[in-house]
């Protein structure tokens, strides 16, 4: 896209109108959607791309000689090219399409780590991980006798970098770390983490589920070995996801699942596996969802990730200030580097009660443990309320959030 086109393109300010779901009333109030970290709404262009594919182009991919199969394959593989460009992967064979970040991480745990791990090896994660970047590693540790080692965080919700350095020993076989914490919004110092791990030849996986919607990702600049993310956090349909993997590593890994499409030749004596990335894509994939993911990337690029990051940073500062001004509020997650998320508690109101009262005023937030129970344990709380931002939010949304919290305080006052 040229610079001239870009200046005429959508601005973040106007993009709200592109999301049909945002234009409805909930309990008699215009919807304020502050739960994009759980799942983001989809723009009209994504909805239209999926519908158009379903209406006109659907067939199975990589199989038929007929026209529809060609169209479906072109659209599906075209989306892979868009993903490759979006994260600046060196090669399209490094883009494995999955059902989501969860499957991407499980794939790495089972296909990359499990064959190589031995008793006494260590896998390094952090205290602020989502369950999807904890449990797959626990499983592979149980299977191999490896040990799961957890890098601590401080009371702001930041990674303890000194502890990381001490725990990063030669017997660490894998470092798996969130790019951005889903519960706290902390942006981890991933470049430092990767550089230190590289110096010891230790591979690094980044859980990018909360990173990809908010900032420009360049996997070559990051120099990570794996980057996992989900489509539905970045305005695409659910059931789509990506594992970026360094080609040399993917090449050496055995398949994750067996089935159709991941083979070149099958006989009962044995099977020759397909080339990358198809070796890891057994079975008919989520074709329409992936086409939607391609459309979501087009949409994000029409605005520009730099613009989006700038807009969200201003919003987050505004939200944190406005929330901090509320009497009786406790902000949880106050890292210096943050993106998009603020967890909080108000007085002694249980987050679930707060969530109900806010919903009654049309304000959608997440309440509970956010699939990060160890984070909740660390802060000594059963759960939090969490407001999360996306490119379509604005200051009015935050004012409505604050008004709704004050209403809850009156009811419980």
């Amino acid at each position: 896209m040229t610079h001239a086109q870009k200046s005429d393109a959508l601005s973040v300010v106007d993009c709200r109108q592109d999301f049909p779901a945002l234009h409805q009333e909930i309990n008699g109030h215009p919807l304020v959607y502050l739960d994009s970290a759980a799942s983001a709404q989809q723009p009209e262009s994504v909805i239209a791309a999926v519908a158009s594919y379903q209406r006109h182009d659907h067939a199975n991919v990589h199989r038929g000689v007929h026209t529809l199969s060609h169209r479906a394959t072109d659209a599906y593989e075209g989306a892979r090219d868009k993903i490759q460009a979006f994260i600046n992967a060196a090669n399209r064979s490094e883009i494995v399409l999955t059902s989501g970040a969860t499957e991407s991480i499980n794939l790495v745990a089972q296909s990359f780590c499990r064959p190589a791990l031995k008793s006494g090896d260590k896998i390094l994660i952090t205290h602020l991980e989502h369950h999807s970047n904890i449990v797959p590693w626990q499983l592979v540790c149980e299977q191999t006798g490896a040990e799961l080692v957890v890098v601590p965080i401080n009371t702001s919700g930041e990674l303890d970098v000194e502890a990381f350095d001490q725990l990063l020993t030669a017997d660490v076989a894998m470092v798996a770390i969130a790019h951005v914490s889903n519960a706290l919004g902390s942006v981890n110092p991933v470049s430092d983490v990767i550089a230190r791990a590289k110096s010891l030849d230790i591979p690094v996986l980044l859980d990018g589920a909360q990173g990809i919607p908010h900032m420009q990702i360049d996997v070559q600049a990051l120099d990570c070995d794996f980057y996992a993310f989900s489509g539905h956090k970045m305005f695409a349909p659910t059931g789509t996801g990506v594992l970026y993997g360094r080609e040399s590593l993917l090449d050496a890994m055995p398949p994750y699942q067996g089935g159709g499409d991941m083979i070149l030749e099958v006989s009962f004596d044995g099977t020759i596996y397909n080339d990358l990335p198809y070796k890891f894509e057994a079975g008919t994939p989520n074709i329409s969802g992936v086409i939607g993911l391609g459309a979501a990337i087009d949409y994000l690029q029409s605005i520009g990730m730099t613009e989006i990051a700038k807009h969200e940073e201003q919003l987050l500062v505004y939200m944190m200030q406005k929330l901090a001004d509320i009497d009786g509020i406790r902000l949880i997650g106050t890292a210096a580097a943050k993106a998009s998320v603020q967890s909080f508690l108000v007085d002694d109101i249980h987050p679930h009660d707060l969530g109900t009262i806010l919903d009654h005023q049309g304000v959608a937030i997440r309440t509970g443990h956010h699939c990060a129970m160890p984070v909740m344990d660390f802060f000594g709380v059963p759960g939090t309320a969490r407001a999360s931002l996306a490119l379509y939010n604005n200051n009015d949304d935050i004012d409505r959030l604050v008004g709704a919290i004050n209403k809850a305080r009156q009811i419980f006052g």
Partner: protein
Amino acid sequence: MNAVDIHSGDDLRDLYRELILDHARSPRHFGKLENATHTAEGINPLCGDKLRLFVRLNEQDNIAAASFEGSGCAISVASASLLTDMIIGLSVTQALDCFTAVTNRLTDPESFQEQDIGVDLSKIKALDGVREFPSRVKCATLAWHALNSAVGGQQTPVSTE
């Protein structure tokens, strides 16, 4: 403080009635019961409510004492508090009748018909507001399921999911 905006507040006020807020702030019979003969845990994984109910039966199978501990939202704590208030002195059969009456009242209001089970259930009506909040019905019934589990024979923890 500004006056409460009542424009959309009626359902909310109905959910968070004074009696509910009072029991949530100052739960009755809160804490572990020494010499409990029956106990069960109730877990609501959706919001993290986790309560443990204790019951002490005497030789006549009457509930001599009851208490609960744990953490949860206002609705689940208030419901547990009301429960303990209500069941002390009842027979096991009466307590299980209460479980049936309360859960039917909250989960199936269309076909629910009040029956005289010989127990004063009037305070339980304070929970009626949850019927307008489907996601909160489980909070209100959590302690009651734990009661059913504790004295009704089930031994495993109950979950609302």
